[in-house]
């Protein structure tokens, strides 16, 4: 399967009467190793390869996918898709159109410095078992009886062709570790999970230093269970750590600025947005806030250079100096709002339609050190990371519960507090940001969306930041 087959599929769709057609051949390969409670649960190989074709016919959109490599089977899928798109066009009051985008020819191949194949499987499983041993070493009266570790090596190869003349080929490796720990003391439990991930080869493992990370997490859980006191109530200031601010940037800015949510296309699934098209340019919060969305960050987990509609990726500033600045678009939403796409269309596998997705979302750093953020607080909480979160489907009403969190009193960190909640509306949050840290850190995640559901790799990131005067009950 290659660009020529993709071209053949596009040409055939056009011959059947499609006004526009695109074909994406995608080959996803994954090795996963799972260690649970000190034992190797399984080694797994996943290989998904197939072709998808999208067509615009009489103003309606058809998508078809198959993993058959036989031309007859692919041809039948295209015919079915065109037929069904025509049938659905009678229900269209307004035809779906794609924005005009300049055709490109591009290749993006990321060669790992250390390929996954060059590292023996036993070294990988021993690394996971080592992490497990390090966790156990932190036990005292606090036990950590449940320990789950995943190592995932991924490789995605894409060939993309569309009827505008775009041809794109990419090969991107990804490495990820995910772990979940449960600590217990006298019937009380505390849990923590974290994912590390980058778009490169096994060379990332050495730089991540997972043993240090897991050791620190284990020590943190032990301390939370043995030392954390109840959190104070009332009006408190918060300093939020990068893993919290990254999640907030993703959930309360990235998602509601996805134009398909804004225009209602995801209404029955992920939901809609409290943001409306006419709010572009209006103030959403403090002028010191800028939220960036950038697929082109080198090595990032959400990295890509051309999206799955053939549009080049670029940095997007969703919020700029406190103003709603830009939405995330695909070619259909861009047409609706009379602009060009900014390359936000992504699909997980060959058998999933491209949807508007984030890549790497983060608050731009400011110029405060952590000490400066804290020293100005009379009474507050330093929420370094989180254990629970959710947000409503309009992305308006959100909640984060701290895992490692501290009481701040008189400008100083005093002691650990247990599970303080930050439950706030999105506009209130952005209004209350009054200082942003000068650091920046990212965590990896898999972001889910769509129907059928699909997950894409992303980074979520931020510096420390401070918000003032939040009621905590």
């Amino acid at each position, binding site marked *: 399967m290659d660009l020529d087959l993709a071209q053949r599929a596009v040409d055939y769709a056009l011959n059947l009467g499609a006004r526009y057609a695109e074909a994406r051949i995608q080959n996803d390969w994954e090795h996963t190793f799972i260690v649970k409670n000190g034992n190797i649960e399984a080694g797994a190989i996943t290989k998904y390869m197939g072709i998808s074709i999208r067509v615009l016919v009489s103003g309606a959109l058809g998508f078809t*996918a198959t993993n058959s490599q036989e031309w007859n089977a692919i041809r039948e899928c295209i015919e079915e898709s065109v037929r*069904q798109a025509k*049938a659905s066009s009678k229900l269209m009051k307004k035809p779906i159109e794609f924005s005009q985008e300049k055709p490109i020819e591009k290749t993006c191949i990321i060669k790992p410095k250390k390929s996954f194949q060059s590292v023996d499987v036993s070294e990988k499983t021993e690394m996971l078992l080592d992490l497990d041993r390090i966790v156990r070493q932190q036990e005292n009266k606090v036990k950590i009886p449940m320990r789950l570790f995943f190592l995932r090596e991924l490789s995605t190869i894409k060939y993309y062709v569309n009827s505008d003349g775009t041809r794109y080929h990419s090969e991107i490796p990804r490495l990820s570790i995910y772990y979940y720990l449960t600590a217990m003391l006298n019937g009380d439990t505390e849990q923590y999970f974290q994912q590390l991930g980058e778009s490169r080869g096994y060379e990332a493992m050495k730089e991540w230093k997972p043993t240090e990370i897991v050791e620190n997490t284990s020590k943190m859980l032990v301390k939370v269970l043995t030392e954390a006191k109840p959190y104070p109530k009332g009006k408190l200031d918060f300093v939020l750590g990068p893993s919290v601010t990254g999640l907030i940037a993703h959930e309360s800015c990235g998602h509601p600025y996805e134009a398909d949510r804004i225009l209602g296309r995801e209404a*029955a699934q992920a939901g809609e947005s409290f943001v409306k098209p006419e709010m572009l340019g209006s103030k959403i919060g403090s002028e010191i806030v800028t939220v960036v969305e950038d697929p082109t960050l080198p090595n990032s987990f959400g990295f890509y250079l051309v999206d799955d509609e053939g549009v080049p990726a670029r940095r997007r500033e969703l919020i700029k100096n406190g103003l709603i600045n830009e939405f995330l678009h695909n070619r259909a939403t861009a047409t609706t709002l009379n602009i060009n796409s900014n390359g936000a269309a992504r699909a997980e596998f060959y058998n999933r339609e491209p949807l508007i997705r984030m890549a790497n979302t983060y608050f731009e750093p400011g110029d405060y050190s952590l000490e400066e953020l804290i020293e100005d607080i009379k009474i507050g909480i330093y929420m370094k990371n989180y254990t629970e979160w959710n947000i*409503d489907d309009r992305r308006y009403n959100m909640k984060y519960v701290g895992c490692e969190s501290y009481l701040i009193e008189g400008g100083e960190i005093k002691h650990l507090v247990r599970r303080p909640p930050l439950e*706030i509306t999105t506009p209130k949050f952005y209004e209350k940001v009054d200082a942003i840290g000068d650091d920046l850190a990212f965590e990896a995640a898999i972001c889910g969306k769509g129907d059928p559901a699909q997950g894409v790799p992303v980074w979520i990131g931020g510096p420390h930041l401070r918000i003032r005067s939040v009621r905590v009950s």
Partner: protein
Amino acid sequence: MSHIAELIIDEALKCGADEVQTKIMSRKVNQVRFSNNEISAVLTLNEKTAQIYVAKDERALVAEIANLQENEIKSTIKSLISMAKSIKPHESYSPLPEGPFKYREIPDSYDPKIAELNEKTVELVEEAINAALQEGAKRSAGTLYAMEDEIILKTSRNVESSHKATSIILYVRSFVNGEISGQGVSCGRTLKNFNAGQAGVEAAQDAIASSKVVKLSPGKYETLLDYSAAAVLISLMAQMGNAFYVDSGLSCMIGKINEKVASEKVTIIDNPHTPDGLNTMPFDDEGNPTKPTTLIENGILKTYLHNRLTAKKYKTETTANAGIIHPRAWNINLMPGEPTKEEQIQEMKEGIIVKNMGYVRFTDYAAGDFSAVLRDGILYVKNGEIKGGIKGFRLADNYINILKGIQSLSREPRQIFHWWMETETPTITPTIKVTQINYTKPT
């Protein structure tokens, strides 16, 4: 497809596997996505994939591949066997069961009318949209799936069987006044009980019932969980009762076998033979004939769901819920009660009806503390009458406390399976009345 299964078994044994299992899955999907009363996209899928499990020297390895060409199959098996040399044995390795087995015929699993729907799916969506509009909704969105599946299972332990099934699933979300919404679901293996128009009507009715907003302070309230919300809650038992998740700390049922985990009114059965159940299946991934398993009986946790690996660890028998590596649930059934839903509402002095919820996130799986976002109808009830809709509430409580607080179950259960990821296991549930559930609201 059976020749592919044979190739896999033969090749794996030739390469030195001690035992082999393969599951070849063929899936055809017709899907219609709609929003703003129009079709957003029509999607079709035609794929065949193979799961390959090999065990060698008590190492467990599995692959899932979508390229079923002979050279790719052989290469994958070679990689699995090679991996086996470099990993340690599974702590509770247990061989696959020795067949052959007799499997139960499951009626009403396959409806040729669903397999032949093709572009007629658009007409069903049109029916749902129009029904919602006629009932008073302003706009509707949703998804319709019509699917045809065929599975062939073969193992090196003399197990061979196949199963064909169809599914139809419609989810409708309707809006009045901007963001006020309601939802309707219709799903099953056949078209027998499927009603697209009724799903549209219910979505519109729920939205209209919520459109008059009333103010209410957060706190603890008597609650009726309507079908979709009840399904989200009860479907969590697919994870909470799963031995893999118990072992991983991702369950609040750890160490609670034979303990009270719910009100005595609660009996939950995982049933692979539920009529019209979307996960009805005669055999599990190991080839065991499937059977109903009572997870909770009159409030007492009776067992976890097991495959051969977890059963060995827990020194018990498999419950025929394999997953080749970890167990999985089939159709989660909460046994119904006596009153009608209307009677449940009439008895409420002051309370809340929750139509749907999602984004369930646990602070602590082991303790069961979680919160969920509510949508598609949160209604305030006073003296048995619905007074209006509530905005901005979040459910924040404890899973076992809610199960223990169940005071009544309605008499007519429904199958719910929809909405993205929140009800991943088909759940057949009545409406549930809980003594009190806690709600919070943001600053």
